[in-house]
């Protein structure tokens, strides 16, 4: 091997890489929030009385879980304009991430909801709670607490998958790295550094989720 590694190049552009990492964090955080919302709505819809609605949600879940994220992204970004919906790369990236995460989140939240014993809902009714109060305090919060670790891993998977949105030149860490590499051809050094940053982001998100779990659900876990 007669290649000389030049990590000084990386150091010179490090602030740009950090900015790219920040864009990834921002994009992923938005996708997580919206994806979780889709997941909660989807899980509620899957427990609906209407068969058609349940079928639609199930079809959505199967379609997303059995096709690659990259193809979903390409279909949204290049395919939707044929239907008259034109999106900016960043919007298409976010939409693809939300649609993708939403399907997984629906399954995860549904599992949590199903784990809530029917008797607790009856107990809630017996206490005279309103339906939305039961949904919130008896069903959703315990369900989310139970599945929070699974949601956290899925969130991190989506954050890692977001590197793919660089192919439609949405702005995030991989895209920023691509741009720099196209300028100085130090591909290995830069992708190595970007990989390290992604690893740091994974660990960071993991820590954050653990902290959120402790703070958010501490009040409820005392009683069980």
């Amino acid at each position, binding site marked *: 091997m007669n290649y000389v590694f030049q990590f000084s190049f990386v150091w010179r552009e490090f602030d740009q890489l950090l900015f790219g990492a920040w864009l990834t964090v921002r994009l992923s955080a938005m996708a997580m929030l919206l994806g979780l919302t889709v997941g909660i709505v989807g899980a509620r819809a899957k427990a609906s009385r209407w068969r058609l609605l349940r079928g639609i949600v199930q079809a959505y879940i199967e379609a997303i879980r*059995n096709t690659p994220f990259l193809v979903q992204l390409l279909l949204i970004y290049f395919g939707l304009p044929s239907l008259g919906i034109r999106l900016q790369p960043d919007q298409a990236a976010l939409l693809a991430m939300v649609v993708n995460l939403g399907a997984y989140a629906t399954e995860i939240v549904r599992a949590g909801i199903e784990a809530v014993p029917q008797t607790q809902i009856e107990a809630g009714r017996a206490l005279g709670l309103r339906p939305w109060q039961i949904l919130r305090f008896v069903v959703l919060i315990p369900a989310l607490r139970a599945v929070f670790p699974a949601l956290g891993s899925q969130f991190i998977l989506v954050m890692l998958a977001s590197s793919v949105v660089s192919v439609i030149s949405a702005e995030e860490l991989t895209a920023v790295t691509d741009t720099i590499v196209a300028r100085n051809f130090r591909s290995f050094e830069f992708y190595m550094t970007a990989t390290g940053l992604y690893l740091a982001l994974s660990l960071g998100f993991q820590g954050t989720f653990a902290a959120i779990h402790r703070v958010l659900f501490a009040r409820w876990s005392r009683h069980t």
Partner: protein
Amino acid sequence: MIREFTSYELWFLLQAVRWTVLLAVIAFVGGGFVGLGVAILRIARAGPWRAVAIVYIRAFQGTPLLMQLYLVYFGSNLLGVGTDAWTAAALGLTFYSSAFLAEIWRGCMQAIPRTQWEGARALAFGRMLQLRLVILPQALRIAIPPTVGFLVQILKGTSLASIIGFTELTRAAQIVNNATFRPFTVYAIVTLLYFTLCWPLSLLSQHMERQLNRQHMPTVKVQA
């Protein structure tokens, strides 16, 4: 000149399916061998071996598959063993699969009651013999459903090989799209093709898991 989307283009896409499948098979077989080794290290009694396995698994699970492919692709060039996209994709996906399979299989091996190890030791089996004759055959039974499930992840993961320029299904779609400029048609067909590959595997995995639960596992209700 823009070409029409004809049966020839459709045939081109269908033919690209074999590269997707072949890549997935290679990644699964290669990843299976490496992954089994890592899984065994992961449950080794010697701390350092366990640490090596943990770092390996964390590194691959905590970074994007795309970055892993880039690093293999550009890294092997630096090592002087210039690789084509085909080898890089196969190698990268093998590493990626090995980390996930190792983690899945570790769980299966650890699910075997400790008394089985002790029983095998009482028969004067060495550690490797205990593993081979007693633990692995039992772990295999519970490992099959999640392993088949992970096959779907590998199949979907192969789509990223298109980004480093290997012509599998997704890359073929981009080529056809560039010639015909019918993005919605092309990507919808490709989505359908991936779905046709992945859905049966998902169903099979779910089916086997249900059967396994019914047959042997006592139903454990975990109170969340």
